[in-house]
Each structure stands twice: as structure tokens, then as C-alpha cells.
């Protein structure tokens, strides 16, 4: 076991939440928390010459869900090509596994830890399958984890919106979050998945009627954004807009941002929603329009969803998009319709730098980062594994910190659609280490309302990542020298040595019990699962308090 006390000595600390920017100082840890001081004889970890940051926080990933398991099943070839032996742990049982774009669960935990990430959220879980996600999280060590519950295409919610029952919709949201042990509300293609399942195929804008009902994506966005605010959830609604991946979708994205009307909202994988042009007429970057709107609206946050060249696995509840991807790519396609709630689509893919659209997507993501005025509000993601694996984060960080590397890479992508982008015209900005600390830990933690994550002030969870400096930024960020999780030294000299279970991050907002008889009738009328059996039992840990 590692000591309950630990003084990390002499590192250059990047703790932007506490205004610390590379100052050489000690970080003191006791019983899993950061403390202001320790006795002089406390065990020491020499971090002189190294960079010290809070543990990474992944605000948007897909790694622990039934959808991920469908994706795993789809690519035995990937798993066979990336076998992972058990790590040599000093404590506890080590497990082998497989990698690829969607690694097995233990390997996922080990790889996150090996990257210096200690908290991660699965961003799209059908409430009906939340029990499965919690089981996968139980087998994903090293990271504190949580799930976002998919809402916005569910029958009960649509009925409430249709009948103007806003308060009941809010109570339903609270019930779903508590029953599924979720942390936040995720909206995917509001109304579009129900349209896919009902034969309408999709919606085309936020004012389309959904499946002939008196419900629009706009109403869904406004109802759920209002519910999240009303419930004082620590993280606002997490929105995947309509028309993902469609040329010209920037108009839908901006309309969605305007629709939430000053409420808090997080717009996810912005890159996939920042396309100019028009269907059938071609693609161009819409990054500037999107980021300028976000820059001007402090109530909005986002993550980028950067595309990185290489293999990817598209996994999304946005099932109509996956069908189009299947038809256009000819690749394997899995679709699962989930009763009364949502859908799921999966297509394995590769982003190639010789491809014009993939190159444009890559450029748009970088534009969003480089034109963002506030790193606290626009944070790092690849929408793992949709835009690329989380293992690509170090390479992405290098692109952001090193213009020379970025410009060199730019020379080798397909220029057809990239020409004329702000990136091609030359963006000189280089992220600093402190800004990287913001977009990879402090910012996501703040956006999530996790007061004990993403910083190293007294009372913070003792999640710390220590990097050896290296001129090769990608190398530096891909192999932390030390990682501390909840006060336990889990990575030593770049090797995983311990793999403790992570904690569960969830909320359980209150609601008016008057909801329950009506909800029970709905279950009894249409669900294949008994109302009594729907809530996940024996959830670990205590819920996080409201914002």
C-alpha cells in the first residue's frame, strides 16, 4: 500500500483553478485529499523538474455502456490485433484484456490511468441499460466514473411536452437521474431518434414536428434545459444537436444555442456540428461562426470532439446518422432500437488524412480550439472513440501547443476542403501548459460542477498527475511519470502499479411523488420491464449535491 500521507515535492504545479501557473511548490496529500500542510517527516515523492497537474477529467467519452459492448462485439479483429497482458501490479488482482478503439473494461481503466486521467464520464447511456453501465464501471478501475442519461426521444417525456406538463417533465427527469444513478442529462438529436424509429427517418431542423406530434426539437431542448436548471444539476444539459455530420449544420447548431435562451447548456463535440456548405453542394468550415457564438455567451460551454487521423468507432444514439454512414461507407452497421427511450447506431470507421472531408473535420476541430476565447468553457475531447481514441489526447495536446508540429501536419492532409479555413490561413496560437491544464482537468471539472476535482487546493480529491518534461509534448503527455488516485500512487516511473476501484459520480435530485402513479401507468401500459424493476438497486457511493 502507499502511505496515507504524501508530500509531492518541488514540482512545477499547474493548478489553474487556484491561480497557480507553474509555480514550484509542494502538494500535500492526506487520507485521499489534498491538504495545506503535512508534518515534516511525511513520506515524500520527489517531483523536482517535473510538471504537476490535477488528474485528468474526461467530460465526454463512450467507454461503459451497452452500446460500447455492441461495438466491442463488432470488431474482434481489432481486439485480436491489440492484446493487453495483465499489468504487474504490486497490490490487488490484475486483469488482461484487449484494446482497439473500444477496449475491454479493465484495459480502459488501466489506459486512462496510464494517461493521467482519473475521472471519466460515459456520455450516452439509455436509461433502460444503466444497470449494464454500472456493471461495466465496476470493472473499470482507476477512474471515478459516471454516466449521462439519454433523454429527449423518450415516449413519456414527449407526451409531457405535448401536453404542456413542464413540471411533470422536470420531475420525470429527476426520477430518471435518480433511478439510473446518472450524473447528467444527455440530449442526442432531440426528436430525431424517435423520428428514425417511427418512419420519419429524421428531423431536419429544430422546428420540425417529431413524428407528427405537437413536439419539436426546440421544445425538447427548452424543456430539458429548464429542467436541469430547475433541478440545480451540477452539470447542465449536455447537448448533441440535430443534424450531426451534415454539411450546413452550423445553422442548426446556432439555432439550438439560441433556443436554450440564456440557460446553462453544454454543447458537445462541437466539431461535428460546425459545418458550412449545404447537403449535396459541398462542405466548408463553420467553426468561426460556432466559436464566436460560444465566445459571446458565457452561459454556454462545450467540448470539441476533435477528429484524429486513424481508426475510430462511431457509437451514438443518433441512429439515423449511423445509417447514413453505413450507406455511404459500406461498412458494418449495428442498429439497436431501445423501447420507449432512444436508439443506438454503430459503424467502425477510419479518418484518413488523404480524405477531403476527414481533413476538413480535423481542421475544424483545431479551429475551434485555437479560436476559443475561454479555455474554461471549451474543453478537450475526441468524443472517444468517435473522433479517435482517448489515447490520441497527447498527440492532440501537441498540435495545440506546438504550431510547428501543427503546420507540418497540415502539409500532409488533403487540402481540397481545408484551403480557405482559418487554420490554413495561419493560426499562430500555441496553448500554454496552464491552458492545457484547464482544457483537460480544471475546465471539465468546473463544467461538471465537481468541486473536488480538477484542482489541487485543500479539500480536493488527491488525484494528481506528474509528468517528466520533454521537448516532445506528445511523449510527455502519453507517459506520466506518476499518477496518484485518491491518495494512492497508482503509476510509478511510468508503470501502473495499483488499480483501485473508482468511485461512482451520480445525482439524485428530489421530485414530487405525484409523478409516480402516472409514470407507473405508463410503464404498465407500454414497457417490457416492470416499474419496480426499472431503478438500479444498490448504487455505490453517495449522490453529488445539487449545484
Amino acid at each position, binding site marked *: 500500500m502507499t502511505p496515507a500521507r504524501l508530500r509531492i515535492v518541488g514540482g512545477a504545479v499547474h493548478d489553474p483553478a487556484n491561480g497557480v501557473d507553474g509555480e514550484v511548490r509542494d502538494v500535500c496529500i492526506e487520507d485521499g485529499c489534498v491538504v495545506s500542510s503535512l508534518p515534516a517527516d511525511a513520506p515524500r515523492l520527489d517531483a523536482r523538474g517535473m510538471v504537476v497537474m490535477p488528474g485528468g477529467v474526461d467530460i465526454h467519452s463512450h467507454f461503459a455502456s*451497452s452500446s*460500447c*459492448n455492441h461495438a*466491442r*462485439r*463488432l*470488431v*474482434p479483429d*481489432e*481486439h*485480436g490485433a491489440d*492484446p*493487453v*497482458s*495483465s499489468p504487474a501490479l504490486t497490490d490487488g*488482482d490484475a*486483469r*488482461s*484484456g*484487449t484494446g*482497439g478503439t*473500444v*477496449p*475491454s*473494461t*479493465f484495459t480502459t481503466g488501466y489506459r486512462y490511468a496510464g494517461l493521467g486521467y482519473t475521472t471519466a464520464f460515459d456520455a450516452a447511456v439509455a436509461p*433502460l*441499460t444503466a*444497470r*449494464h453501465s454500472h*456493471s*461495466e464501471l465496476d*470493472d473499470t478501475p482507476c477512474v471515478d466514473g459516471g454516466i449521462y442519461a439519454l433523454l429527449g426521444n423518450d*415516449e413519456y417525456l414527449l407526451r409531457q411536452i405535448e401536453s404542456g406538463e413542464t413540471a411533470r417533465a422536470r420531475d420525470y427527469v429527476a426520477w430518471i437521474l435518480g433511478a439510473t444513478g446518472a450524473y447528467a442529462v444527455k440530449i442526442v438529436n432531440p426528436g430525431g431518434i424517435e423520428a*428514425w*424509429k*417511427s*418512419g420519419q427517418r429524421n428531423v431536419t431542423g429544430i422546428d420540425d414536428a417529431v413524428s407528427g406530434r405537437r413536439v419539436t426539437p426546440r421544445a425538447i431542448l427548452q424543456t430539458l434545459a429548464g429542467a436541469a436548471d430547475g433541478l440545480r444539476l451540477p452539470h447542465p444539459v449536455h447537448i448533441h444537436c440535430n443534424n450531426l455530420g451534415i454539411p450546413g449544420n452550423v445553422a442548426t447548431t446556432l439555432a439550438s444555442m439560441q433556443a436554450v435562451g440564456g440557460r446553462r447548456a453544454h454543447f458537445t463535440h462541437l466539431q461535428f456540428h460546425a459545418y458550412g456548405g449545404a447537403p449535396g453542394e459541398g462542405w466548408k468550415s463553420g467553426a468561426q461562426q460556432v466559436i464566436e457564438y460560444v465566445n459571446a455567451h458565457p452561459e454556454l460551454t462545450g467540448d470539441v470532439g476533435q477528429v484524429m487521423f486513424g481508426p475510430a468507432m462511431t457509437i451514438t444514439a443518433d441512429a439515423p446518422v449511423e*445509417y447514413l454512414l453505413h*450507406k455511404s461507407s459500406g461498412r*458494418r*452497421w*449495428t*442498429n*439497436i*432500437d*431501445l*423501447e*420507449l427511450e432512444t436508439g443506438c447506431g*454503430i*459503424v467502425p470507421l477510419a479518418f484518413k488524412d488523404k480524405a477531403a472531408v476527414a481533413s476538413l473535420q480535423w481542421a475544424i476541430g483545431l479551429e475551434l480550439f485555437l479560436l476559443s476565447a475561454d479555455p474554461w468553457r471549451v474543453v478537450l475531447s475526441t468524443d472517444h472513440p468517435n473522433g479517435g481514441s482517448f489515447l490520441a489526447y497527447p498527440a492532440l495536446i501537441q498540435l495545440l501547443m506546438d504550431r510547428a508540429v501543427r503546420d507540418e501536419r497540415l502539409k500532409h492532409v488533403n487540402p481540397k476542403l481545408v484551403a480557405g479555413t482559418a487554420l490554413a490561413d495561419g493560426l499562430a496560437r500555441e496553448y500554454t501548459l496552464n491552458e492545457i491544464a484547464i482544457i483537460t482537468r480544471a475546465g471539465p471539472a468546473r463544467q461538471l460542477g465537481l468541486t473536488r476535482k480538477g484542482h489541487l487546493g485543500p479539500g480536493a480529491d488527491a488525484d494528481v498527475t506528474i509528468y517528466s518534461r520533454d521537448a516532445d509534448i506528445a511523449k510527455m503527455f502519453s507517459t506520466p511519470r506518476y499518477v496518484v488516485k485518491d491518495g494512492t500512487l497508482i503509476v510509478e516511473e511510468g508503470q501502473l502499479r495499483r488499480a483501485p476501484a473508482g468511485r461512482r459520480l451520480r445525482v439524485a435530485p428530489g421530485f414530487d411523488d405525484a409523478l409516480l402513479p402516472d409514470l407507473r401507468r405508463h410503464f404498465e*401500459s*407500454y*414497457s*417490457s*420491464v*416492470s416499474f*419496480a*424493476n426499472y431503478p438500479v*438497486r444498490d448504487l455505490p457511493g453517495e449522490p453529488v449535491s445539487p449545484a
Partner: protein
Amino acid sequence: MTSARAIQAVTCLGCGCACDDLEVKVRDGRIVNVSPECPVARAWFGDGSVPTAVTVGGRPAAIGKALGEAAAALDVAPGRALVYIGPELTMEAQRVALGIADRLGARVDTATSSPAAAGLLAAQRRGRAGATLGEIRNRADVILFWAVDPRRRYPRFFSRFIEAEGTHVPSGRAGRRLISVSVGADRAPAGTDTEISLTPGEELAALSVMRASVLGNALGDLPSPLHAVADAAALLVKARYAAIVNHAEPGEEAGNPLRAEGLIALAQALNGPTRAVLVGLRAGGNRSGAEAVMTWQTGFPMAVDYSAGFPRYAPEARGFERVREAGAVLIAGSAGELAGMSEVLGKVPVIVIGPRASAAPFPTRVAIDTGVAGIHEAGIGYRLDEIPLPLTPPLANAGTRPAAGTLAALLTALRARPAGRTR
């Protein structure tokens, strides 16, 4: 006689439908009634009595001695141990069993990999268009039964998902068009709106014709049964939401192994002109759970070989096909379906930890009886569409030994072996 105690919302793992709306009545530690009436549920629960023995070499033994003997027997070279995850375990117990396999460097398989392999492998080649069972109920207006009659092994399938009213099919059965396609002895239900019979030799041609029809290809003149299936394809295309139901575990006598791939391709193609899904019926006992756990822990749904120190996929050597090479076998779960393997299992040390282990139909080195998932043990069981459900055991305090806990104790015993071959 004491009065009966009623337990509500009990999940039945008697078949893959995993109905979770049962009321089970218990009196004096025995199950006395299960409702609604279902012959599969009645057989699954029985009166709930199971043996509670622990044996070594067929003789009663203390649990500590049995676990020690089991650990010693299983401590063979990597690749020489075979772990078989049989039915009737909770997901939690299946997780532990896989942990044991990882530690032993064992080959692993599950109770359904052989019968379900054709569908699993086809879905890995193509993907699939599927749905949860409730989508059939709520949306399907045209339903094609392909070589399966759910009434035989899934008695409540019709009442729950065909006759019941749905959100988009408010009139229930009256709002659905049912098509039956029987293939040789694999009969589809009688009494449907359209009934077609094919010989096994016609099956693949029929699936090809249907897919070609869905894709809008010119078919020319077709002989009688193929003409009929082309008409059936036209009905599917006109559906608002079509569901194809087949048997995902057709058994050894099954027809063409390419059936699964043909059905997957047909369902996928139907999503051009309309919406369509394929739902494969699966047997009970939480078999789908074993595949789910194996997938998330290894990346593969079946036929895993840990002998290299990491999971490798070995679908060409599934189940007991290589049992003769094994130096020891651990059966986690029910061994009742392995009666046909008694001769070969009689030649290797076999450890059985699961329900009715002491009554295994072959000699055992160690047998440890446990409770049955969902009857004596709480936890999670998976429905055939991979929806996880809580198990509310009506006989939670019946004195049975917990499977997950016993397997965990075996893992601890394996870890404690100082000079063994296990890692």
C-alpha cells in the same frame, strides 16, 4: 401450515424473455405458486429445492478442503484448464468466473456459444439491425416468424409482445400482420395471416429472393415457394416497422448455418425502404449475460483463450471441442446440460461450482452446490435482448451457498497458492 408469502416483480430466467412481472408464492421455504401461468416458469422455479452439498471425490467435505482441492486441481499449465460458464448464474458470478479463467490462463466458453455461434459470427461480419423486445410490442405492424414458433419455448412471447397494445399499435394483435415461414421441421406458428413452408434446400434461395426484392432488383419468374416469399418481402417493405423473429439458438439439428447471415442481411436491407429489426430468441438461464460479461471483459462474446496471458478469440474451437486436451475443467454454473459429455468429462479432473453440482451427470473431483440465479440469489440477469434485469430471489434465505461468493473464494484460494502455476 403457515400462510404463503407472495413476492412481486420476480424475474424468471426460464427462457430468454426473462419476464420480470411474476408473482411467486412461498410457503415453508418452498415455492408453491407462480403466476401468471407459464409452463416454462413453472419448470424453472419448481418448488425451489436444490441440494446443498459439498463433495470431494464424491464424498462430503468441508468447504475449505473442497476449495483447496479445487485450486490444486485447477493449477495446471496455461491453456490446459477449461472454464465453462454454464447457465443459472448471476452476472456477478459470471464476472468472477472470468476472473478465475484469466488467472488460470484458461480457455473459456459458455453454454450457448455452439448453438448461437452462427448468429454471433454473422453479426460480427455484418453488424445487425436489432431492437429490444418492447419495440416489437410498441411499433411492429408486420412480423415475420422465420422457422420458429415462440409458443413452444417462449410461452408468453405472444401475449406480451404480439397481442399486447403498443404505443404505435394501439389495437395490439389486430393491428399487426403476422407472417410464418416454416423451414422443414423448424415450424413457424400456425394461425398467422400468411403461412409459407419451405424445404431446407429452398431456404437460402428464399432469403436471397427476399433481399433482392427489398433492394428493388428484378426477380423474373419465380417458382411457387419463392414467389410466396417475394410477396412476403413486399409486405415487409410496406410495413411501418417490420420485425423478423428467429431462433438464435436453433440447436444441433438446425438447418443451414447461413440462415443467420441471410436474416441479418434481410433485416438490414429493409431499413432502406422502411424500418426493420431482427430479434433472435434465446434460451434462459442468463446465457446472454455470460456473453455480455465476456464481451466487456475480453472484447469477445465467446470462445476465449487466455493461455497467452491475454484473451484471444478462438471461435473455431468452441465449447467442449477441445476438452480432451484439458488438464482440468471448471464448470461454473449448472452442469445439467452436459450429460452427453459424461464419458470425456470422466477422464479429467472436473470441478463444478453451481446449482445441483453434486448431481452432475459425470464424476467430479470437487462439487459445490450453490443457489440458482433469481431463485435463491439476487443479482443481475440479462434478457435475450441484453436488457439487464434485477433478480429478486423468492428463496433468498434458503441456506444455499452463493455462487459468486464461492467462486470468489476459489479465486482467493488460487491466489494463495505459493508455488502453483497460476499467476
